[in-house]
């Protein structure tokens, strides 16, 4: 899923300072599932903004709502259109796709995001952190690299790793605390008896495939 993280409250309060009628919009997709921008978080944020503004002596009308998926233009239109009267700010709690969809659908209303987005990955509930596993390069290498993505998990996105910075299976970036992606690839391919895939030379990638913005025909 997409990895979202709410911006610091201070920053959100500053961003919303000049608005009078705010609609905080959660998303029940990735952001909701990760409990960063679901309906509960939208409600909490609405309350916090309301309280802060009251304390500042600048009361504000803040409501909250939820879109099933903020990346879906049609869902955004049908869910939000009936709720927009007098609204001067749409504050999105979705990943970076959500606010842009809001801009597409409601070009006349200000849209701000309360979230920073960190790409595609997953969450380890026990460790309590997210990890990035895919950057959507458009030419997936996983079938050749033992199911481990060097484009995302190697900070240099090397096609022919590991680099000389690998020590004891750890990466030079981040003080040798993180696994070297190419070491993991080596281990997997070795276990599968496919070290030929490791030794194989991979020519430079065609970056046009990864060139943004992309439109993908399904």
């Amino acid at each position, binding site marked *: 899923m997409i990895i979202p993280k709410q911006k610091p409250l201070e920053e959100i309060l500053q961003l919303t300072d000049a608005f009078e009628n705010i609609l905080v919009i959660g998303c029940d997709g990735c952001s909701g599932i990760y409990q960063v921008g679901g309906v509960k978080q939208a409600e909490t944020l609405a309350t916090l903004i309301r309280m802060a503004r009251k304390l500042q002596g600048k009361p504000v009308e803040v409501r909250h709502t939820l879109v099933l998926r903020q990346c879906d233009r049609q869902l955004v239109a049908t869910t939000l259109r009936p709720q927009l009267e007098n609204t001067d700010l749409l504050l999105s709690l979705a990943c970076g796709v959500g606010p842009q969809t809001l801009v597409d659908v409601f070009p006349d209303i200000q849209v701000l995001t309360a979230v920073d987005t960190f790409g595609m990955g997953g969450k380890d509930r026990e460790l309590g952190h997210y990890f990035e596993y895919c950057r959507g390069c458009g030419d997936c290498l996983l079938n050749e690299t033992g199911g481990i993505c060097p484009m995302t998990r190697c900070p240099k996105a090397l096609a*022919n790793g*590991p680099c*000389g*910075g690998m*020590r004891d299976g750890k990466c030079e970036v981040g003080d040798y605390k993180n696994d070297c992606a190419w070491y993991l690839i*080596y281990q997997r391919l070795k276990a599968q008896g496919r070290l030929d895939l490791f030794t194989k*030379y*991979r020519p430079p990638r065609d970056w046009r495939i990864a060139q943004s913005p992309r439109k993908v025909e399904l």
Partner: protein
Amino acid sequence: MSPQRPAYSDLMKSLNAGKFTFTGEIEPEKIGSMDEVLEGAHKLVGHVVAANVTDIPQSFAYMNSLGPSYIIQQEVGLEAVCQMTCRDRNRLALFGDLLAAGAMGIKNILSLTGDHPSLGDTPEAKPVFDLDSASLTHLIRKITDEGKDLKDNDIHNPPKFHVGVAANPGAIPIEPEILKLERKQAIGAEFVQTQVIYTIQEAQDFMNHIKHIKIPTLIGLCPLRSYKIAKWVTDFVPGMTVPDALLEQMEKLSKIEDKPTRKEKTYLLNVQYFGSLVKEIRKTTQAAGCHIMAIGFEEIVKEIIAESGVR
């Protein structure tokens, strides 16, 4: 394999002739003139066949390698091994620099992936890594063997290069390192310069591991200017350990009050230690030579070589 290819550089001629070969290293730092570079180069000329010129090493914002490589060849007569990393330039810029290197008479390129920018003094920099050491090696081969760019377009008067690569004898585990060298051999790397080792055991082990690889390999050595540096290497550089006996001797010398005496004794210890290490490497391994990195005290290189009795 390299022996069948013509040799365009003194380095390659020496390696092809099977001579035990020495290379040195020049590190242009945060400087705006060539004075220091030339001073270092002068101390090496006549003692090493060629000297590496570093390319923004460890991602510290330093002078590049291309200019100083040209200047040490022109002004000092010291052949350059121009290091090129993939950290800062995409394939267009690397190709452009290679053409310029050719026009400047540079013959040896060391193809490196490069350290990540986050390791250096400007960690905010955007990492490029459009190519890596393997694909840069491939590009250099294409230019040299076919006279073409990556898209098979002809180059007018294509330059001729020899391309070297790095290897790390201290890699743990060692197998991926060996497989990488196999990959680079298949692409056409012509010489290897290793990361630093401190004991004959490390040199022997590594040369045994790569017995099947037929690329001449120069073992990396780095004399230790002071006990502080030796201790730092052991404590903080992963995969590098100065042997206890040497460390103890250096510690003892570091306690000498008189600075000139302390410096001289430390210097002599280095000459003896690394001189006999070179001798052993030559006697007991298949290494093609040694790459001696003595940044800032290049004069020690000739003493180590003399001590080793190789020449």
